[in-house]
């Protein structure tokens, strides 16, 4: 099976995929970003991006993506840890994964009903004496629904990392006198850091470009880079500006990939020791 022609045949699907669906689109976006509405070559789109409104938009997108990732992590890590300790862990994991198969928009619409003034959430707040609150169309509802949507994607890689962790290492740590907190901080966390990093990647990056939820749940009070791109292409029909925002979004993504994939030394290798 090791002859060369066969190996290059195997390479075809991968190369074709990367060329057609990764390199070509990015090249096109970069190309379009240099043209204005009349089809003239220009750098004005880039100048425009650094105007106050788009800069503010970028900062707020990052802030919300950060919040969403942080809360997803805070919920997902303990959940994943708990799951690895249960007896039928694959079943429990499946129960968490199943809702992520349902279309995102359908789930979002459900939240409009749940969080409405006459929805169950407000009915609950009223019975415990807090009274009706405007929940829908707030920052809170936006972060809450986004976290709900992203949690399964955060749990999976962390679960896999924790599951692969050799229990003997924890026993060793305890035998050597480390308490539970130190064991977690010095042994478990470093060994599962890769799971956390891939979790952050799959949550933070899509969170930057969330759209529709911004309108349906946040009532456009939160606007992300994704919304701005959609508007430029569909409403304003300014493909140049839309592409420019997309170029920056792509750059941010690479940046995050580089940051979260750094430091793949020692730690992972130890994890693989059996």
């Amino acid at each position, binding site marked *: 099976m090791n002859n060369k022609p066969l190996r290059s045949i195997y390479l075809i699907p991968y190369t074709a995929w990367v060329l057609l669906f990764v390199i070509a689109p990015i090249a096109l976006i970069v190309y379009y970003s240099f043209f204005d509405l009349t089809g003239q070559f220009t750098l004005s789109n880039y100048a425009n991006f650094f105007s106050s*409104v788009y800069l503010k938009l970028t900062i707020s997108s990052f802030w919300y993506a950060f919040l969403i990732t942080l809360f997803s992590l805070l919920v997902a890590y303990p959940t994943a840890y708990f799951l690895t300790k249960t007896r039928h862990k694959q079943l429990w994991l499946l129960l968490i994964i199943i809702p992520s198969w349902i279309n995102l928009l359908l789930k979002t619409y459900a939240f409009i009903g749940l969080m409405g003034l006459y929805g169950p959430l407000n009915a609950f707040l009223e019975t415990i004496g807090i009274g009706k609150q405007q929940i829908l169309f707030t*920052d809170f509802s936006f972060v809450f629904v986004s976290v709900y949507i992203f949690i399964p994607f955060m749990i999976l890689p962390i679960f896999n990392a924790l599951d692969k962790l050799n229990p003997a290492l924890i026993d060793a740590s305890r035998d050597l006198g480390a308490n539970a907190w130190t064991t977690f901080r010095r042994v478990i966390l470093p060994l599962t850091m890769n799971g956390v990093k891939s979790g952050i990647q799959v949550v933070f990056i899509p969170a930057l470009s969330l759209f529709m939820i911004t309108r349906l749940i946040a009532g456009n009070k939160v606007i992300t880079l994704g919304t701005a791109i959609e508007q430029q292409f569909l*409403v304003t029909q300014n493909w140049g500006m839309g592409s420019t925002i997309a170029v920056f979004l792509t750059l941010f993504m690479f940046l995050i990939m580089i940051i979260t994939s750094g430091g793949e030394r020692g730690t992972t290798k130890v994890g693989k020791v059996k």
Partner: protein
Amino acid sequence: MKDLIRGVILIVIISFVLMVINSKLGEGGSRSSKDSITVYNWGEYIDPDLLKQFEQETGIKVIYETFDSNEGMMGKIEQGGTSYDISMPSEYMVEMMAEKDLLLPIDYDKVPNIQNIDPYFLDLPFDPKNKYSIPYFWGTLGIAFNPTLLEGQTFESWDSLWDPSLKGRVVLVDSARETIGMGLNSLGYSLNSTDLRELRQATDKLNTLIPNVKAVIGDEVTQLMVNNEAAISLTWSGQAADMMYENEDIDYIVPEEGSNLWFDNMVIPRTAKNIDGAHAFINFMLDAEVAAQNADYVGYSTPNEAALTLMDPEVIEDERFYPDEETRSHLEVYKNLGLEMLGIYNELFLEVKMNMN
């Protein structure tokens, strides 16, 4: 490995069988584009019974597809690969599509029912002599509100939305021309202003409305109003009619400073395959009885004069949906301001939305 191959083969066979069945079902009575037309319309914008009636009367099968924005619709037609025989753009979009040479001229020999249309709605600036388009429905933009959820506030003008007692209650439309237009109208400027100073003033005025804004959304607002979730919204007249149909407490007004008067129009895209069928469809929709039934179903205002005589007098005397000419003279039709201006409107609107956080 054997199981895997068997599985894959099974899936391929099943898919193929389903594909054959699907194409057999799709054929129905029609074998070619000669006896079918494809209608591309807004959602919920026609009485489905009329499509059946048209099929029975003419033997032409109707394939019906929907869109939810003028720009999206134009994009699809412009990119090609579609063969829509009828579409329903709004007035500024008719102008834009005509400029881009995406429309076919209408042959009035095949549309005798054009005489049913009120001349007031013909030969308008966006399509002189109705070369490419025939009005389908018309309406206004105004304020829908639910008095039972409010403390006696009344609405006559745009300015009443700025009332400090309405904190967090006003729902706006996620569309730049409408929202910036409201700012312009409230200052007494034209909806079609291209004066940057006026646009700046309108944006600043909208920024002061922010404390009162509950959300900036699209069609979802209908459900929110019907369910008493929202009390006040910037709404098109037909959408308001939908709300009132389901929730009788809701009322609708067109503000006195002026507002938008709009038209959705039947056109034949350049990509049409069955041009005769398209004309037959237009002529059918202009028939007095058909137009009356359709207006009754859809709830927007019909430009069909002959149809009005067949409709419930209570409906057509309702000033909220059929304003008299005096009121209409305060209203403005959107002009196509060009892509550059549209970009400026959208950037200003984005700024207002960003300030809400």
